[in-house]
């Protein structure tokens, strides 16, 4: 997706359409993360090397090339076969409860298997994930690029409602697509030397607006991982690999969990 800041007027329609479409709750989750899939932040007016600037940071999941959120997922891996809708090619992978689709490139969550631990949300330098605790069980949530709407022949909700046509959605791998043309014109990723995940939402704008956007909204460091969550994730993951297909996963998992619980209790 490209966001054209020359067109964007900062009206927030995208953020609300997304909230309506996916019934995203307002406020913050219990780990103080903004509950949102899609947001608009007003920037400036501020001085930039190119003059006074005022623009917007319309943000959403970047569906990164190397997503930081996927490998930290502690859920048991399962074998999933993905199909390329274009070529019909198939690819089978071991995936946890969140993965990057090998064909369409989107990063998705299987809510059924999501543990709701928030490790993925903590790992995202763009704060694009949160944990929805409103339902029966907590589940990580974020922008899906509206793959469900796309499958039904519709545009993503934020794209459809955008009065400025500032959000351009398409296939970056197709050189003739509108999005690819924007990339050629210089549409930029919000990346820094320490945060290079290959985000697939790019921003286009004049020098002063881009200067303000990059200065204020590029993550400068990778988030400090939540040690406990990471540890649990690692333990669960390695165990899962060893015991996979042996039918002992449940036992091993239960043992690991028991161990952690004891650890937890001893600290209280």
């Amino acid at each position: 997706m490209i966001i054209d800041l020359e067109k964007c007027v900062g009206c927030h329609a995208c953020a609300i359409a997304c909230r309506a479409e996916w019934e995203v709750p307002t406020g913050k989750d219990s780990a103080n993360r903004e509950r949102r899939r899609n947001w608009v932040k007003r920037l400036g007016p501020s001085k930039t090397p190119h003059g006074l600037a005022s623009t917007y940071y319309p943000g959403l999941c970047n569906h990164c090339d190397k997503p930081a959120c996927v490998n930290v997922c502690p859920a048991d891996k399962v074998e999933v076969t993905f199909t390329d809708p274009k070529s019909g090619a198939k690819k089978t992978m071991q995936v946890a409860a969140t993965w990057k689709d090998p064909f369409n490139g989107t990063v998705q969550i299987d809510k059924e298997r999501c543990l709701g631990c928030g490790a993925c949300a903590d790992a995202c330098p763009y704060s694009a994930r949160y944990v929805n605790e409103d339902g029966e069980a907590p589940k990580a949530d974020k922008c899906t690029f509206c793959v469900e709407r796309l499958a039904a022949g519709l545009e993503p909700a934020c794209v459809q409602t955008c009065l400025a046509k500032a959000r351009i959605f398409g296939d970056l791998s197709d050189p003739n697509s509108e999005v690819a043309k924007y990339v050629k014109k210089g549409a930029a990723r919000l990346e820094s030397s320490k945060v290079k995940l290959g985000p697939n939402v790019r921003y286009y704008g004049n020098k002063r607006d881009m200067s303000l956007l990059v200065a204020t909204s590029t993550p400068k460091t990778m988030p400090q991982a939540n040690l406990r969550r990471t540890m649990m994730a690692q333990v669960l993951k390695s165990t899962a690999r060893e015991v996979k297909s042996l039918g002992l996963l449940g036992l091993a998992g239960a043992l690991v969990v028991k161990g952690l619980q004891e650890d937890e209790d001893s600290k209280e």
Partner: protein
Amino acid sequence: MALNLTRRKFLQTASLAAATAAVSGCFANRAAASTPFVRKPFTAPGSFADTKTVVGGVCEMCFWRCQLVGKVRDGKLVKLEGNPKSIDNGASICARGNAGVKLLYDPDRLKYPMKNVGKRGAPEWKRISWDEALDECAAKLKAVSEKYGPHAIAMFPHGASATYPMGFFEKVVGTPNISEASFFQCRGIRDTAYVATLDTPPDENVDMANAKAILLLGGHFGENVHVSHVKRYLKGLENGAKLIVVDPRFSASAAKAHIWVKIKPGTDTAFLLAVMNHLVKSGKYNKAYVTANGVGFDKFTAGIAHASLEWAARICDVPAKQIKEVAELLAANAPNVSIHPGRHVSWYGNDFQRERSLACLTGLLGAIGVKGGFVAGKGPKVGKAGGWPAVNEEHAEHHALHKMAKKYPFSPPGTPTDLIREAALTGKPYPIKAFVAWGQNPIQTVPNQPMTIKVLQQMDFVMVCDIMPTDITMYADILLPETSYLERYDMIKPGTQWDLAGKQQQYIAARLPLVAMTAADHERKDPVWITNELAKRMGFEKHIPVKSQEEKTEKMLAGANLSIEQLIKEEGIRVQDGVEPYGKVLKVNFFSQEIADAGFPGVPTYTPVPEPPKGFARLVYGRAPVHTFNRSQNNAWLVNEMPENPVWLNDESARKMGLKDGDRVSLVNQDGVKSRTTTVLKVTPGIRKDTIYMAHGYGTMNPAMTVGVGKGIDDQSLITKGAVDPETGAHGMRSCFVKFIKDGKELSIPA
């Protein structure tokens, strides 16, 4: 200990998931391979899944009236979208439009008729039946009318729901004392100034999409959003139109401008006079148009001859060469220039002359009836219905306060607000003893809240009809709950395609309900029903023009050979061939004999406004893209987007005052009135030192608005001294001055 709780939950869930996997092995998830996006029941299914698309919605989150469709599942509205058949907004709607769902299902909405058994301002509510409520309203209104005359009833209406009752009170009951916020605190000045100059109210009819240059005076599109209007503006910019923005603040539009004129607030007319004088002196105006259509041009040129670039530069505090640059840019692109008339123009109390200047500048450039200029689309004809007969209209006219006082000859329809309030407080020339607010919240729309509250306290009866428990409802004796724009039959919206140079088309849309009007948990009624029931009880049954909203809609559609049924078949919008909008010529009253005869300057004239006292700066306000006036401040989705209205302060001033971005501050005005609440400080180079800015539409004081109460600062609470425009009697509201309070200490603003 929220984190611990989450952790525990995590452990439980992890163990459960692991156990499940053990039983079924990894084969269990093979099924997921073909449908990796199965998320039920943990994610919403999406508005397109298992929903019915209901057509016929017309938005009223603001008054631009975008055409909608509703996505309805099991009788519940799950999402609003632009009607894809619309040639106006298309499938797009703004943030507020999208958030209409949250208004519809707001748990704080008024549900039942209520009687205030406490005090006005400190209400205690008792649920009563509609019969009881209407009987009491009718009896009390009748009593006031019989004792003091029908003119003793004042009405403060706003929105489509208030049109029908307003006609009843004005024409049948017979009161002239109707104060529409949309006129007296908004656009009335613009409309009458343009009528005096071009013989037509302007609406926002500038063809920005096809303009080569656009001039905005205070217009801040993006912060102020009307979908097809912003589409026109953006198309113009995309096509290379030069944008000139005159604003003391680096607004959303200034950020996209080629020229930002950082003008001293209150001086816009001086700026416009200098631009016009420069065009005249340098011969760069449209001589052909002016010769053919100008009236009183010689008097005009003589009257503005003093307005040199240097004169205006001193007054406006902008460089003379920038004023010249603006004039030259407009001349170079004339006649294809959009001189935007503005919308909310009740700013400083010298506004009629500024609006006159804009209309004259439009004429001077010949920017009328041409691409990019002042052009109105030609909409289709529809029928009329629901008009009340003029039973007592003569009585009303005879008692019009501004006519009795021989003041404000260019008042928009109704009566200037301050004349109503003064009559109420002095009893002269006659008392005003009943107050009806219908869809308007005068506490937050009208300057000088203490005065409005005194006016309310001296009433024999106060009746309020609304959707939400706004601040004015706290002062009601009887409070009536009405249906929202999503639940009722209502008005007709005719128009044309948004780009006037596009394929010429017209449309007719009607507001039809997207969800059922009734439900078990409330007794809301539509305004036609409520008004008719009042009329019956007040003895006016024989004058009732329509029995229901639906009948009214049906009759209006019949005027276009349409019916509700047919309109639904046509997906909620009739689209038909249109008419070429260009080519219309308008006469331009550069000098107006009519205005001169009334004792005002017949040539546009600049009148200075009071300067801020030492230590204060002028409070100006504007719009937030997520709010419409003060109407949407309890909408949970909109509040979540912008929970407060940051107050803007110049960065150099902030440094001298020891304030920093993000500080919590409150404000105090020149009369010592303090804001009830605090808000967050925004420190920026994008505002003048003599100007403080905040978005309007925050800080409701009614605890019944559980989401919005006390959030941000109510700018209107600080506007204790409203200016009054001498020609129109409408308010100017950028007339107050503030300084800051931080940690209990008052902080003066350096000059």
